[in-house]
């Protein structure tokens, strides 16, 4: 709710809806100037970095998947990447392609969930997708069909949609049969049409005129839109390895949050996620996604956070198209996993979760037991930027009614698809005083 009049005004939302996990927001305005902005995260911490200590490295993908039920593949892939990096292993192309296909399934599932069930209702004045379905059932059914297709890809490759079982360090327990993979082509073709229609649909929404001055960070991989691998790049010229980037990121623990606030070199705020991936990699999108983006009026860079729903829809087109390409080119990897012998040392894994960059770094002993773990989740990295957005949105929206301003603030948070469950468990172990 929002209250106050004249010189002082405040906006508070106690339990943010349509986000994954538990958070709240609070904004204070005095004499027409936004004085205080806080996205508070009160999700209970689950201490994953501590409970990984003493576990075998090959348990990390399954354990860290339980950080987030919305993006378990992201956790599994970053965990595998960190262990393989520590052990000096590279997986072969067919395994890498199968990982990318599984990951596309998660992008489709997660983006369809966010676009249709969590985000679109804001633009249409609905409390939720059920109310939206009363007005436009066909749209919601299109979203559910997309989501189902993403889940189908995850079930076919990973064994199940939430916390897949077929992923292991080095690859997969078994390669899905060519028949089962080929059977994905038809649903993916329909999903590709639905994703293109999604871009048209969301491009017609009305967007508040707000622009952020963002430092974008995402993976970059020549010739491919980044998903499961790449170097880390930024809009101000950074280009480094995942391990190099992990060295630069400093996270701070503040009193009001169980999530950490990440900055590059301890001072520079940055944004990861669809807006960042698009800004740094739009040229790598396949033609159908580029055409959809152009038709929606997106330039090469989108700095209006409210239009992130359009970028997410463009990424849906990409993910459906890319999954279809991988399905059509599928060759079962044999063997389905490469051997990973434990080596004492440390390694970093970095992949693009649907909502942004996810870094894992582990230290292993010679027996392959984890002796130290650090996980940097997308929402920890985006939290300061989200607060900056809130400040801009409130400043630009002071003429709105209390109810409208409150809703717009909620929307400003949902623009970045925060995963608060992910954000709440992580902290570099020795950040203070660095």
């Amino acid at each position, binding site marked *: 709710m929002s209250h106050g009049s004249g010189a002082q005004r405040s906006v508070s939302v106690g339990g*943010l*809806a*349509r*986000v*994954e*996990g538990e958070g709240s927001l609070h904004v204070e305005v005095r004499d027409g100037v936004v004085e205080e902005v806080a996205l508070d995260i009160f999700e*209970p*911490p*689950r*201490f994953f*970095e*501590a*409970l990984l*200590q*003493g*576990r*075998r490295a090959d*348990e990390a993908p*399954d*354990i860290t998947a*339980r*950080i*987030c*039920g*919305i993006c*378990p593949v992201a956790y599994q892939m970053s965990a595998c990447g960190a262990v393989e990096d520590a052990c000096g292993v590279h997986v072969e192309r067919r395994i890498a392609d199968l990982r990318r296909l599984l990951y596309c399934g998660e992008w489709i599932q997660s983006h369809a*969930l966010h676009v249709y069930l969590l985000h679109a*209702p804001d633009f249409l004045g609905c*409390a*939720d997708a*059920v109310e939206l379905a009363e007005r436009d059932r066909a749209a*919601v059914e299109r979203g*559910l*069909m997309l989501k*189902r297709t993403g*889940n189908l890809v995850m079930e076919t490759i990973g*064994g*199940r949609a*939430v*916390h897949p*079982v077929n992923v292991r360090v080095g690859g*997969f327990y*078994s390669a899905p049969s060519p028949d089962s993979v080929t059977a994905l082509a038809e649903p993916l073709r329909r999903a590709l049409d639905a994703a293109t229609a999604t871009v048209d649909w969301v491009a017609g929404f009305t967007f508040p005129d707000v622009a952020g001055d963002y430092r974008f960070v995402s993976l970059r991989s020549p010739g491919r839109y980044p998903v499961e691998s790449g170097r880390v790049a930024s809009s101000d010229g950074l280009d480094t390895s995942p391990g190099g980037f*992990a*060295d630069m990121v400093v996270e701070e*623990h503040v009193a009001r949050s*169980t999530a950490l606030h990440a900055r590059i070199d301890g001072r520079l705020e940055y944004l990861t996620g669809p807006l960042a991936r698009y800004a740094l990699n739009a040229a790598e999108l396949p033609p159908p996604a580029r055409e959809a983006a152009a038709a929606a009026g997106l330039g090469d860079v989108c700095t209006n956070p409210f239009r992130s729903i359009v970028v997410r829809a463009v990424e849906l087109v990409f993910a459906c198209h890319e999954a279809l390409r991988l399905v059509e080119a599928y060759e079962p990897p044999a063997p389905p996993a490469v051997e990973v012998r434990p080596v004492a040392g440390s390694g970093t894994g970095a992949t693009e979760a649907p909502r942004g960059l996810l870094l894992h*770094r582990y*230290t292993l002993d010679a027996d392959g037991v984890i*002796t*130290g773990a*650090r996980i940097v989740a997308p929402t920890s990295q985006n939290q300061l930027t989200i607060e900056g957005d809130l400040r801009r949105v409130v400043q630009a929206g002071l003429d709105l009614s209390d109810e409208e301003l409150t809703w717009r603030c*909620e929307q400003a948070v949902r623009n970045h698809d925060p995963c608060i*469950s992910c954000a709440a*468990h*992580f*902290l*570099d*172990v020795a950040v*203070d005083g660095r």
Partner: protein
Amino acid sequence: MSPDDRPTLAVWKFASCDGCQLSLLDCEDELLALAGAVRIAHFTEMSRAAVAGPYDVSLVEGSITTPADAERIEEVRASSRRLVTIGACATAGGIQALRNAARGGAYADAVYAHPEYLSTLETSTPISAHVPVDFELQGCPIDRRQLLEVLTAELAGRRPVVAGHTVCQQCKGRGTVCLLVAGGTPCLGPVTRAGCGALCPSVGRGCFGCFGPAEGANTEALARRLVDDGLAPADAARLFATFYVGQPTFGDQAVRLGLPGVGRRGGRGEAPR
């Protein structure tokens, strides 16, 4: 406005990954029908509208890990006619119950620079340790078909039909060759509750117990077999000490096998940088 006499459904989240409540949204084919049959009165992940209680059925995800949540679950119970817990966190404490074995505060010290900013309990406990629970649906994550069965049964006022037998039996039903017998692959299938569809053995992987112990599970006999087959006791302990470590059948077996280092370390580990 005409009175709405549909039964009300509420969904609540405690310490968890959101995966079990996502299973409800993953019922893509049934979601809109369900939303017609019940009034979704409180479901923060799905809606910004919330209707005040009491609620006919509450689904609860997550474990109790903070003093505030220990109070909140009492309020949820008081406003719910039927309370159903969903998933390993709500029914057994989840993977985060590994902290129960740690020295006081060791985990918070390891993860957060300022543990004094946190307000957490030293244990992660199931909902049933705090309030009476009407039905517990197992799984990490739960199976969405079982969730629909439980919801249907609750709305019809009958007992849900949910399997109590083992993954091992389900595997036989699928005709999957036994990994334990044929290849010596460590597998918790003989002691784990059915419900997933025996997924792991079907991809050539031993069951890792993510649906928790089956009724009457003989974990001691299985543990002996695994160790006789050459699995190090420490690794056998780890196998029992994952998502159902907070459930005594698995947790105590892990302790009997030595529960190596798990949750016992203080400090921060070797900082990975």
